[in-house]
């Protein structure tokens, strides 16, 4: 690896970086009473990134022969040379201190030490528990368990050489139920940057049976009304909001390229005073945990909003240099094939001092939105959309009609300002994969219960 960086230097690169990634993963899925897939994947390769005369070049290869690695370096250099007279926004990076470091996540139960048969047994149990709750109405149950061992070595021309090894484990269960013409589904997931000790941290009531109960209860839920309502968001929906609606806007590449609604707002009050939002890659065991980012910067806790004030953005080496900031340890690459880009890690809203009951009483009438399914955002317009697993109409401060298939939409800055209350209860419990620029990253998000004065719901009545 170091020789690639040295060779790049000798060929006139002002910055060079060689990154080796090996990803070894296993996946087991049980469906409708049968283990139907056991798989094993191992992918490895090297990504090379260079700057020549203010232009980036990047090349990756799955072939690890010296000849092919040299050829990749040549391709990265040739690519940078093509752009060097055409780039107006010149590439430059913050200088790093030379360092060598090696970190490894030590888990209590390594997935490698568990036989496929034992993994399969556990997954079958989850699937059976969910199915057996109501075999008449439950039509389809899927449970899965995956583990990913990710080894990354980052070498760059500042003399940085960091190595890290991480393990991520994820358990999921999906249940589809039907009654008459109504079909509904629900899921649960548990995950962390940890080994199979994760599986000791939850029980069926809290996982497989919870998903099954949810799918069954949604069969008698109603489609939502359409319109604009006051709303209480649960921690999973809040997690979706802080990640999708705010977090992507706080990524400095979006800010620098003019696609963020919070550009040039540092120091301004952009949210209600009860709102503080943090991105923290150092939370041990959380799904978005890591030791170093993919540029070799150590992981950090970064405050984005504090008491309503926009404190800072999330940076990589390039945006930190251009925006006169410190790298925040948020440059992440999915694999050797992708250059590091600015990403979140574990993103959450900090807890406040309300209780859920107080929120219901204060809101009186509105909707309570539970369980984030998916979301997306147009950062430049500040518009977000989320689909939630279930919801309730709130009447006179009480949960009334159960609602299904609910999506909500709003404008990020308007919504942040319209937050009226933040609860003491807090959960960081949405392990998943965030997609950006064709890459996925392990992330988690969450927060407290949040009371918002106004949100638009897409309904059928």
């Amino acid at each position, binding site marked *: 690896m170091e020789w690639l960086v040295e060779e790049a230097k000798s060929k006139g690169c002002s910055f060079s970086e060689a990154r080796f990634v090996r990803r070894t993963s296993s996946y087991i899925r049980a469906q409708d009473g*049968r*283990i*139907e*897939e*056991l798989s*094993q*994947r*191992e*992918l490895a*390769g090297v990504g090379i990134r260079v700057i020549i005369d203010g232009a*980036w*070049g*990047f*090349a*990756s*290869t*799955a*072939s*690890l022969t010296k000849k092919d690695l040299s050829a990749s370096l040549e391709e*990265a250099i040739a*690519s940078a040379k*093509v*752009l060097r007279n*055409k*780039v107006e*926004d010149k*590439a430059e990076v913050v200088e790093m201190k030379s360092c060598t470091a090696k970190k490894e996540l030590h888990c209590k139960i390594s997935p490698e030490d568990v036989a*496929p*048969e034992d993994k*399969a047994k556990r997954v079958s149990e989850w699937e059976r528990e969910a199915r057996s709750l109501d075999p008449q109405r439950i039509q*389809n149950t899927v449970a899965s368990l995956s583990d990913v061992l990710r080894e990354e070595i980052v070498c760059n021309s500042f003399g940085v050489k960091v190595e890290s090894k991480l393990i991520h484990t994820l358990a999921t269960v999906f249940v*589809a139920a*039907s009654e008459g013409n109504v*079909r*509904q*589904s629900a899921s649960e997931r548990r995950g962390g940057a940890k080994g199979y000790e994760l599986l000791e941290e939850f029980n069926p009531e809290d996982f497989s049976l919870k998903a099954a109960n949810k799918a069954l209860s949604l069969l008698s839920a109603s489609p*939502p009304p*359409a*319109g*604009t309502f006051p709303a209480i968001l649960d921690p999973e929906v809040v997690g979706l909001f802080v990640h999708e609606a705010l977090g992507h806007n706080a990524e400095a590449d979006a800010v620098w*390229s003019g*696609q963020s609604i919070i550009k040039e707002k540092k120091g301004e009050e952009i949210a209600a005073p009860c709102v503080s939002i943090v991105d923290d890659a150092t939370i041990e065991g959380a799904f978005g945990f890591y030791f170093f980012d993919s540029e070799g910067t150590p992981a950090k806790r970064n405050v984005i909003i504090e008491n309503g004030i926009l404190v800072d953005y999330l940076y990589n080496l390039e945006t930190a240099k251009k925006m006169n900031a410190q790298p925040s340890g948020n440059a992440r690459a999915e694999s050797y*094939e992708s*250059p590091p880009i600015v990403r979140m890690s574990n993103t959450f809203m900090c807890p406040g001092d309300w209780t859920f009951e107080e929120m219901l009483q204060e809101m009186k009438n509105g909707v309570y939105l539970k369980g984030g399914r*998916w979301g*997306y955002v*147009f950062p*430049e317009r500040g*518009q977000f*959309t989320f*689909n939630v697993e279930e919801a309730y109409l709130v009447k006179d401060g009480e949960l009334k009609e159960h609602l299904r*298939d*609910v*999506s909500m939409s709003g*404008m990020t800055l308007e919504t942040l300002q319209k937050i009226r209350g933040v609860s003491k209860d807090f959960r960081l419990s949405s392990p998943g994969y965030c997609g950006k620029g064709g890459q996925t990253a392990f992330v988690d998000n969450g927060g407290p219960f949040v009371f918002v004065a106004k949100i*638009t*719901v*897409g*309904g*059928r009545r």
Partner: protein
Amino acid sequence: MDILEIARKGIEKIKGKIEQADIFVERRKSISLKWEKSTLKQVEVHYDEGISVRAFHKGGRGFACSSPLREENIDKVVEEAVSLAKAAQPDPDFKSLPSPGEGKKVKGLYDEKITLLSPADLARWGEEIIEGAKRIDEEAVVSGGISAGSVEYALANTEGVEVEDSQTGIYASVMVVLQKDGEVASYYDFDEARNLKDFHPIDIGEKACLQAREFFGAKQAPTGTYPVVFSYLMSPGIIGAIAGAANAEDIQRKRSFLVGKKGEKIAWEGLSVQDLPLIEGGMSSASFDGEGVPHKELNFIEEGVLMTYFHNSYTANKVEEENTGHAARFSYRGGVGISPTNLQIKLGDWTLEEMIQDMKRGLLVLSVGVQPNMASGDVSGPIDFGFMIEDGEKAYPLKNTMLGFNLLDLLKNIDAVSKDYREEPGVKMPALRVKNLRVGGGENG
């Protein structure tokens, strides 16, 4: 080494160790250029190669994949897949992998000119796309990218299937963001092709910028029920969601809203859709599917009637129906799923302009987030780009406005398909008009 030869050798190694198996080998090369903040940003060059093995023991399946294509890795994945298959539970629904079949070779899927493109070629297009947007609005912030690549792949199985093919593709997309008096408006466009002769990306920056300008002054529509015209780019999303629910795996697992609907009238009688995998140069065209089964044309919806589900060999054998050849395998890294190919809606007799002019008060939707609950078919999504139409004209652009509907209700409520369309290789995309949909917005209108 020749990749079909690698697959063949792998099959020789696995025979005798397990009842059935298939081996997929792939080499992929791509070059891409990204632009951001209206200037070229970065070129990326990628090379990838790998092998995957699916092994079946008493129907139980083991899957393993690895890169790079080294002799020892090939031996390793063969052993891993065999041992995983033996650890899997038997599956009596698995009958057999496909046998060899005769099919038609689709033309126009590989263009050597694409493999010869250099970073400089991509940079020229990138500059022209950015300039196109800037000609319309000097302050436009333009982002996007262009990528070109080739893939060669081979598949062999223990039943005698041996197929190989090469494909190329090129894709460009652009997002234009405009600002005026503190307000932001944006729009996107794209172009894609398998052959350089079909690739015309130069004007996408200009087109996106012109469209973005129309989104200043956006307002929330009043909550209510309106007729809706879905513009050209929306029809593949809507029909694609229906086709996604016709995946035989989801049907057999009873988690699709199309369970039990085959042979039934599910849509307006004016709606017919074909799946056409053999179109020359089509973006989703291929001579054979992901299990080596020759592709053929299929009527998906005929005059409103759902004619078929989409099968791979497993789902077809399970219910003893004909395999429609829709096994999907996108890379050596993944397993085999089910996917439709080029879905073509039968064109109607309106123009998009006539649909708009005919509307007293309704919505024109250019883009909406169609991500249905596949179990119920319910969609609740935001109108990403759209207009309120009043007296046959665009009254104002929309923001913070949502649509809520069930896909089966929508299909029955379609009452017009346009004869004009946007065309990308392999598919003509007409506009669709739906009688009444529920819209969530501001105060009731």
